[in-house]
């Protein structure tokens, strides 16, 4: 299928979806957060089997998180960025672990760095970070430099020992 056919098919099944062409092998689909599982299941059925990455974007000005599911097909050679926006104050979304096993780890990753809750994923334990107590670090309002100065730069005066 060409890009056009796929996007038309998506439009047909999900009239609410906002489709934006990025280039000739890639386009993005913005859907409601309730629709994310049906859309991904639909894409999986038309051979979009590879979940290349699952990540999030912190749109702090709009007070929203955008979850990006990046799927790819080995037969159509198309990359689709399926996106859903969720409220920043109550970051919760359905987990897609029933569609992709691998999403378990991606969601654990995103949970750790953004603090987004994935309903249905029981593996949201700490992963990369050690004893993390502050705001999830990838959020836009977390100041990395200030944190680093506070924690790792504190003993500058004491160093001449």
């Amino acid at each position, binding site marked *: 299928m060409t890009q056009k056919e796929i996007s038309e098919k998506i439009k047909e099944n999900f009239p609410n979806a906002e489709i934006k062409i990025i280039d000739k092998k890639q386009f993005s689909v913005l859907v409601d957060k309730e629709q994310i599982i049906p859309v991904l299941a639909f894409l999986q059925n038309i051979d979009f089997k590879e979940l290349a990455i699952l990540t999030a974007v912190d749109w702090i000005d709009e007070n929203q998180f955008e979850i990006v599911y990046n799927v790819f097909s080995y037969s159509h050679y198309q990359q689709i960025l399926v996106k859903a926006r969720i409220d920043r104050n109550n970051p919760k979304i359905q987990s897609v672990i029933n569609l992709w096993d691998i999403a378990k780890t991606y969601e654990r990753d995103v949970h750790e760095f953004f603090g987004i809750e994935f309903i249905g994923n029981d593996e949201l334990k700490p992963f990369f970070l*050690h*004893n993390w*107590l502050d705001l999830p670090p990838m959020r836009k309002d977390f100041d990395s430099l200030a944190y680093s100065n506070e924690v790792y730069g504190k003993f500058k005066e004491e*160093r001449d020992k």
Partner: protein
Amino acid sequence: MVLEMAHGTFACATFNRDFIRGVDMLITSRNDLRDNGWERILNYFRKKSMWMLHYCTGCGAMELPPTMTSRWDMERFGIGPMATPRQADLLLVTGYLSIKSLKRVIYTYEQMQDPKWLIAFGSCPLNGGIYYDSYTVINRLALYLPIDLSIEGCMPRPEAVINGFNTLMKGIEKGTAVGYKKYKENYEWYKKNQDAILNRTKPVFDSGVKS
């Protein structure tokens, strides 16, 4: 005949001078001989046979394979990779250290047997380097562990690494590379610094909430 004799004397003289200089460097006085003589002799063997721990803590480890293998071959100097901290004398901190690695590096360093040395690679263990504003990378390794030698470069080239090893050898022979003693003497201070970042109980910023 004369020539031969002269040559022999000359050779003998150089030998003697070298020998005396060597003794000079090793032992300065009779008391010194009594107190440290044995240690100084052992230091010679320590510097000639340094086993480094096979632990790649950061990107600088990428230049260690060339250093170890055919082209630069550091086994020429008696330096070889070792599998576990118990057997090793050298700990190479090859670049930046995230806190998670720092914890393991501290465990590793404490597992190693005296005398032991720690070499820091590149600018990251000195001041954070390019990761000065990262939330997981420590800025100054010297606060948590005693560094015996720092090698400059990002990442240090194999020549620099080998040069660093040679510098450390000199330090060991002169008895100036005694980081492990410093660590023992100032253990409380090091421990306090380590605890401050490894076992934090409170978030750094008030806004911090664990979700």
